[in-house]
């Protein structure tokens, strides 16, 4: 797969050197075995030589491999150093991993569920997680760094080609781990500036549900994911578990608000506990109001 970041070439060179050397060594070892098994087969070679060892050879095949692996270490380190030296002029983007979606927030507050970046400009990533460990992985950029809750890991890249590149979550994070996908969209800087400059205002409606990660678990079309669907949910009567005791409630504004703040307090029966992070610090009051309005309309 072709690399598309400023340092992907360095990583690929290290791969070529390490894997190339490895393939040569493997061929050598395998051929040596086959040749000797054939050449010294008992029918042709009944009288073995009892050679106990050789200090010269032992020294040789200790020292030479040591040098070889030190060169490999150097290659690995050289590429890594570039990955870790974040340029001062890099544009910061906060990457937030949450079960099971990615949100990207730019300096001006603009949020997006895809990582839109200007080709040829340095981008710095502040990696955050709101729940468990995720790992931000862009294979085409040879870039990966974990989003660890409670830590503030950093990474950077410079895209060298316009295009769309896969984003995966590489650290196991639960049921929909393999669906935690997104895209990097690398576009010409002028288009990017235009895109970034357009203030979309605060995200609204269904867009808010996506950015806040709601739709990773709550469908909008009635299908059952991890949590109950949002379709037609407002106003219906549900059986919930309060401290383990089943009772019936009506899904109203108050219930929805409480479910965002304390997801496990009145848990809809039949759905797993402990998966949804309390949203108090993640969703602002006015955003909660907006979400409730959206749910009212989702018939």
């Amino acid at each position: 797969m072709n690399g598309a970041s400023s340092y992907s070439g360095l990583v690929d060179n290290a791969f070529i050197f390490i894997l190339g050397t490895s393939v040569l060594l493997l061929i050598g070892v395998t051929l040596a075995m086959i040749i000797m098994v054939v050449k010294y087969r008992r029918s042709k070679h009944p009288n073995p030589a009892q050679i106990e060892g050789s200090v010269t050879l032992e020294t040789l095949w200790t020292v030479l491999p040591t040098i070889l692996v030190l060169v490999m270490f150097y290659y690995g380190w050289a590429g890594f150093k570039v990955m870790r030296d974040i340029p001062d002029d890099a544009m910061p983007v906060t990457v937030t991993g949450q079960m099971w979606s990615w949100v990207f927030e730019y300096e001006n507050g603009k949020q997006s569920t895809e990582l839109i970046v200007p080709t040829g400009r340095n981008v710095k990533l502040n990696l955050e997680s709101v729940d468990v460990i995720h790992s931000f992985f862009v294979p085409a950029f040879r870039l990966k760094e974990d989003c660890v809750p409670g830590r503030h890991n950093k990474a950077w890249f410079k895209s060298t080609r316009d295009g769309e590149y896969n984003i995966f979550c590489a650290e196991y994070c639960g049921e929909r781990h393999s669906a935690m996908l997104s895209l990097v969209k690398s576009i010409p800087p002028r288009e990017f500036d235009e895109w970034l400059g357009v203030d979309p205002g605060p995200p609204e409606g269904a867009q808010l549900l996506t950015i806040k990660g709601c739709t990773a678990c709550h469908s909008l079309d009635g299908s059952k994911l991890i949590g109950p669907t949002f379709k037609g949910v407002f106003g219906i009567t549900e059986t919930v578990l309060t401290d383990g005791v089943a009772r019936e409630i009506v899904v109203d504004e108050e219930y929805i608000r409480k479910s965002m703040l304390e997801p496990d307090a009145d848990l809809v029966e039949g759905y797993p506990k402990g998966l949804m992070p309390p949203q108090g610090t993640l969703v602002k009051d006015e955003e909660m109001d907006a979400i409730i309005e959206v749910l009212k309309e989702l018939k």
Partner: protein
Amino acid sequence: MADSHGAAYGYTGSYLKTPSNGNLWSWLTTVDHKKIGLMYAAAMFTFFLVGMSLGFLIRLELMEPGTQFISAKVYNSVFTLHGVIMIFLFIVPGIPAILGNFILPLQLGADDVAMPKLNLLSWYIYMVGAIMALVSLFVGGGVPDGGWTFYAPYALKSDTNISLAVMAAFVLGFSSILTGMNFITTIHRLRAPGMGMFGMPLFCWGLYATSWIQVIATPVVGITLVLVTMERWLGIGFFDPALGGDPVLYQHLFWIYSHPVVYVMVLPAMGIISEILPAFSRRTIFGYKAIAMSSMAIAVVGYLVWGHHMFTAGMSDTARWVFSLLTFFVAVPTGVKIFNWLATLYRGSIEFRAPLAYALGWIFLFSIGGLTGLANGALSTDIHIHDTAYVVGHFHYTMFGGAAIGMFAGLHYWWPKIWGRMYNEKIAIGAFAVILVGFNMIYGTMLVLGMKGMPRRYQDYLPEYANLNFIATVGSWILVTGILVMLYNLVRAIKHGKKAPDNPWGSTTLEWKTTSPPPLFNFAEAPTVTTGPYDFTEILREAGVEEGR
């Protein structure tokens, strides 16, 4: 004490035919190291077959993109169970418990391990630990799904019973510690007269190095257990950021134990290879001391490299390059072994028989395992392949190719000694050829998938990975077929095999100087040793070959 068994020398009937042998109770209360080894084998191969079925299911689900047979939720539990069973119940304790128990005292010329009753206790502790591990998976809100690594905070958040699971790992580890202490004591105290430390067969050296790792590394699991328990019950934050803890600390503790354990799995397998190569080349091993000492070197350096599992976790950049550098130093003693093995073939008199086929196949697979590890040790390349299918392929080459295939090689080598029966060698070699094809189709393909960016632990994947995944799944069918034929061939031999001579391969170590199968206390009379472990003078004279030039 083992010496008290001395009175029993002179009984020359098979250990399998002692008067009370027929009933189960005589097995469950035996202190005979050979029977204990076989009891481990019975338990472990049961677990192995379960683990293999789960692996088969994983590959079936991944045959095509989308959901085929099992949902994401079930899939996540299946790969977790596959890992837990294979690692903790099969590969880690496997070779020492089965072949170590059976062969070590025989190779040393002893009548049993130093502490036979403790040995039996270790088996019971293993069984308790295994049952706890299996129970922990099913109590407390269902089957867990965190993978065998159970990373915080995901695994701590879920309802599954993490405390019991860690407790089970500790109990299993305790069994390993006791077995390790038993082996270390046996090696130091019960070598036959005339056998110095450097007169031991190299399998004993592999077990010796492994035993030290077991004794020293396993307590870390105990420490982790205490911390997890304090966090769960007292609310003191160690790992959970919500309580002010750091999830990366859990990863450190996990790998401080689990990385050295990788060498627990593979060092005894290297010992097995070091036995088989001289036997079928009819010549002394090349570089005995280098092989013995490289085992110890791997054991020591192996303690200091755990951080290479965490290159993307957010450790300081300094820690990352230090761990990378140390990791590369482990590669050197491993390479030294491979070169010495090759040199052992040089100008030998080689007979290509089933155990040698397995041993040479092992060298091929383990070389791939070791060499593919280099790209994991180097920083920039590891960043790309970390947590991808590449890593899954790599560790199956080392753990399955290295440890399990090594065990299969050992089983084929010692099977005639254990049961007094020969298996069908043509079927054994044929089955192994099938295994090799299937093996490389699965795990070789995974290496490529990972390079192309497919992450591990994915139930679903993008269409661009479809073809390679399909190949890997077909490979799994071939691999499983080969393994089943191989196991059937071995099991069939127990009853129906031809009678095995005492020394079917023309080997030189002490276990071949007693009957097949050995008597209850191993030797009709206590052996003394006057030559090195791989002295073929007598074998060659019997074969009518002149003294080696």
